[in-house]
């Protein structure tokens, strides 16, 4: 509407490759936001990003307090036991104020909104996982070729 010359985005396929809380949320927010605008959305979880859809881990993701200069605390403090849990709980509280749900509920929300969720086959094999390890919203385990097939005709975003 703001620029009639640009064609509207119709489909996005978002790759989530990191398993920290701050690594997972942007992909979920972008997928959910796409659905809110009527854009078709796929989420492809790979490497440590898989933790976001592993039943036993999805609600235990933590903020990285080490090697994360934007935390504005020295890494040497970040290694103190409990520091990551503390930073995580603070961030979760702030997000809850904005009505951004915890990971498990967020996965349910993007799924109910019509997003399709996929697990990366190479990572599943590497970590000796099976489809039973994943939350019920997971559509299937797919390889890279299948991912490109699903993403065809849309935009790919890597996070």
């Amino acid at each position, binding site marked *: 509407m703001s620029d009639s010359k640009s064609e509207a985005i119709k489909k996005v396929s978002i790759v989530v490759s990191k398993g920290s809380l701050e690594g997972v949320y942007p992909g979920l*927010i972008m997928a959910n*936001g796409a*659905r*809110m605008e*009527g854009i078709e959305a796929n989420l492809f979880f790979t490497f440590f990003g898989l933790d976001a859809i592993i039943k036993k881990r999805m609600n235990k993701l933590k903020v990285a307090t080490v090697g994360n200069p934007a935390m504005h605390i020295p890494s040497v403090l970040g290694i103190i036991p409990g520091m990551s849990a503390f930073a995580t709980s603070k961030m979760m509280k702030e997000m809850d104020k904005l*009505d*951004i749900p915890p990971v498990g509920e967020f996965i349910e*929300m993007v799924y*109910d909104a019509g997003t399709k969720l996929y697990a990366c086959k190479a990572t599943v094999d590497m970590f000796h996982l099976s489809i039973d390890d994943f939350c019920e919203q997971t559509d299937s385990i797919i390889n890279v070729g299948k991912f490109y097939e699903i993403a065809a005709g849309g935009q790919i975003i890597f996070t």
Partner: protein
Amino acid sequence: MPSKTFAGKTVDVDNEGFLVNHEDWTEEMAPEIAKEEGIDNLTEGHWKVIRFIRKDYQETGQIPTIRRMKNAGGIPTNELYELFPQGPAKKSAKVAGFGKPQGCV
């Protein structure tokens, strides 16, 4: 400022057709606003959403997010998407007489 007439009442709207003053809204206007969004018939399901948005605004001063509609309003997210396809938060807010939602979720 552009204006539009719904159910015989002329009201100020923004460039995308959202009501500027939510106090201008009446229940009679909702079906006509909905038609502009491609919703030809407001069902009881639509009204449940509209009434919850109006009520929640009265109580909190904000229009509810999709998550709040589910958790506080008992409106399942998949149902909301079926009722207001291609933009549930925007379209439901518009039909309920509010401005475009500004949040990211």
